[in-house]
């Protein structure tokens, strides 16, 4: 029946090779953009201009020196961070796009490859792509600085560069969690961005209304907003170890959700998936804090936020609004949902707010001057 088997069964290497091959052109595109943003930009600026600019703006120098940047490198580094952000979204989406098409899932799930290998192969291909992008850019930038006789500048900068690389991988691993959970690519991107925005915005508001300081270096603020960690290190020190720990954590989570993901999720809006209500409290929290702060600012700005009844009215109204918006945007049909099921995330979000406010007040020192 079967022809003689002379080759070995395809495994992790096969999946890695095929995934890497598919994202090769995008990888080269982002490599080019990186080169444009750093070494080519440096060449355009020129050695003399670079040295002049680096030595002249003293008022900025101490801040950037701490972050291993200088007056020329920090805007270029910011560009790299922006490109990294886009690269994560584009490459991760390209690597996992077949998750969201039923016919593609039919094909891939029926292939003679286990789900572990399929996930690992793709994830390693993404890792290899980013390693390539960062390595090529680093090599060319090194060559530029070496040519200028300023290798010390490169080595000083390399600390910031490595932090950016770690933050990029952290964001990538975080994105993989939502790519594994979601039923459509649109929902994966929306939920990933939404959660980060909801978390960071809510925490900022809570810090503001409780008049607390934030220690950005080790703050849990960025745990659910890894995109911010691409940019924060430009101004303030952020622990690279936190990035490394979170890379491992999110990667394991993503793998776990990938293993558990049923094939029938493909093409289904997130609002119709059973896990979605677990995430809705984040959006309830966002809606509540945003509207509560807004209303408080409009009508009772002179009062302390947490003692203002107007704030709490806005908080509840905002919580309801956050729940409705997150339900509608996720593809869940409002008229078909049961009221009881919608109330739970609202209560969850409000409880979340209470817990976070309590934790912040207990664990953080008040600011010397009110925000």
């Amino acid at each position: 029946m079967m022809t003689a088997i002379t080759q070995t069964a395809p495994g992790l290497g096969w999946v890695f090779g095929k995934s890497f091959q598919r994202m090769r052109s995008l990888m080269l595109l982002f490599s080019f953009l990186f080169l444009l943003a750093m070494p080519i930009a440096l060449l355009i600026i020129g050695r003399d201009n670079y040295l002049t600019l680096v030595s002249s703006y003293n008022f900025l120098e101490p801040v950037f020196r701490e972050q291993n940047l200088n007056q020329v490198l920090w805007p270029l580094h910011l560009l790299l961070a922006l490109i990294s952000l886009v690269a994560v979204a584009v490459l991760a989406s390209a690597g996992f796009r077949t998750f969201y098409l039923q016919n593609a899932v039919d094909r891939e799930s029926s292939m003679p490859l286990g789900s572990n290998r399929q996930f690992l192969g793709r994830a390693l291909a993404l890792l290899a792509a980013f390693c390539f992008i960062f390595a090529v850019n680093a090599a060319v930038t090194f060559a530029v600085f070496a040519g200028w006789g300023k290798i010390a500048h490169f080595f000083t900068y390399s600390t910031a560069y490595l932090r950016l690389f770690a933050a990029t991988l952290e964001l990538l691993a975080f994105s993989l969690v939502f790519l594994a959970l979601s039923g459509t690519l649109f929902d994966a991107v929306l939920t990933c961005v939404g959660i980060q925005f909801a978390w960071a915005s809510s925490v900022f508001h809570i810090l503001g209304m409780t008049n607390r300081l934030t220690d950005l270096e080790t703050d849990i603020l960025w745990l659910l907003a890894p995109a911010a960690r691409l940019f924060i290190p430009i101004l303030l020190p952020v622990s690279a170890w936190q990035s490394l720990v979170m890379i491992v954590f999110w990667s394991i989570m993503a793998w776990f959700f990938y293993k558990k993901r049923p094939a029938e999720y493909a093409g289904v809006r997130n609002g119709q998936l059973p896990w979605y209500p677990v995430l809705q409290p984040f959006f309830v929290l966002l809606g509540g804090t945003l509207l509560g702060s807004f209303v408080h600012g409009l009508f009772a700005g002179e009062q302390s936020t947490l003692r203002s009844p107007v704030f709490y009215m806005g908080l509840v109204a905002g919580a309801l609004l956050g729940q409705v918006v997150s339900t509608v945007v996720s593809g869940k049909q409002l008229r078909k949902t049961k009221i009881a099921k919608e109330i739970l995330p609202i209560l969850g979000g409000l409880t979340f707010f209470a817990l976070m406010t309590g934790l912040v007040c207990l664990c953080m020192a008040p600011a010397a001057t009110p925000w």
Partner: protein
Amino acid sequence: MASETEIQTEEKAQILTADRLSKHFGPVKALDRVSCSIEGSSIFGLIGSNGAGKSTFLRLAAGVYKPTAGRMLYRGQIVYENARAKQEIQFVSDQPFFHFDTLYKMSKFNRSLYLGWDQALYEELLAIFPLGENDRLDRMSRGMQRQAAVLLAIACNPSLLLLDEAFDGLDPVMRQNLKRILARQVADRHLTVLIASQNLRELEDFCDHVGLLHQGGLLFVEELDKLRLSIVKIQAAFPQPVTESHLRERGLDILQFRTRGSLIEILARSSEEEIHRVLEELHPLLLDVLPLSLEEVFIYELSLKSYAVSDLLA
């Protein structure tokens, strides 16, 4: 070394077994405790209307879906997450997906993935199917894409081929070609084909066995020849009045008895020889055996189970 008989016996053994298989999508029971076995080297037709559970059954057989309950076994092993089993199974869904944009690239892709890939068979099939190896797959018609998917699947030399609405969108010539190709693969390479369709007529000259799915349950599994031979439709005319009870007294299992003037139309569960023998004793003026389509057989079989067949079949 196994003898030819032993090999044939092994090939004919149950290649696919559904054991109290259920698949639920939330509150919807797409399949509910389905149990059946499919013999090797045969063509099994899975019939059912939209939403009956045919595609779900095929996806469970291909290892795409994980069963909610029960098991789907390929040669005695669970299919789901079984890479070894999937080396021998090919699934062609109703909307094929191609990782690459030409047949040539897809053939290279499949060759690297499937250990049983047969390049000679691929080239042989390419000569039969009217497809250009370097034509863009995404610009082909639905029917041609389906042909391409079937071609690639057969060239992987599977033991089990799962086809979801394979003939949909194919022209009559291509349908016949495909049936001929599959029949040859079954005969020469002991391929087993499981084909899902809404259309009984499409499968009746092609399948060895048929099963009828309805609302997630398997109502009916039968060998096609046995099914056809088990029911006979006769048109007769007699010099004297003949009633249904006359025939029943003579031992015939009458399913339907209709009179149109002097003509009598009888549907009986009997062999042709038996019914001839019984009716000849009544000295008929006219005695014709009428052709019976598979659909009519189904109608009568299922009417015994009180199902309205118009609800079940397309």
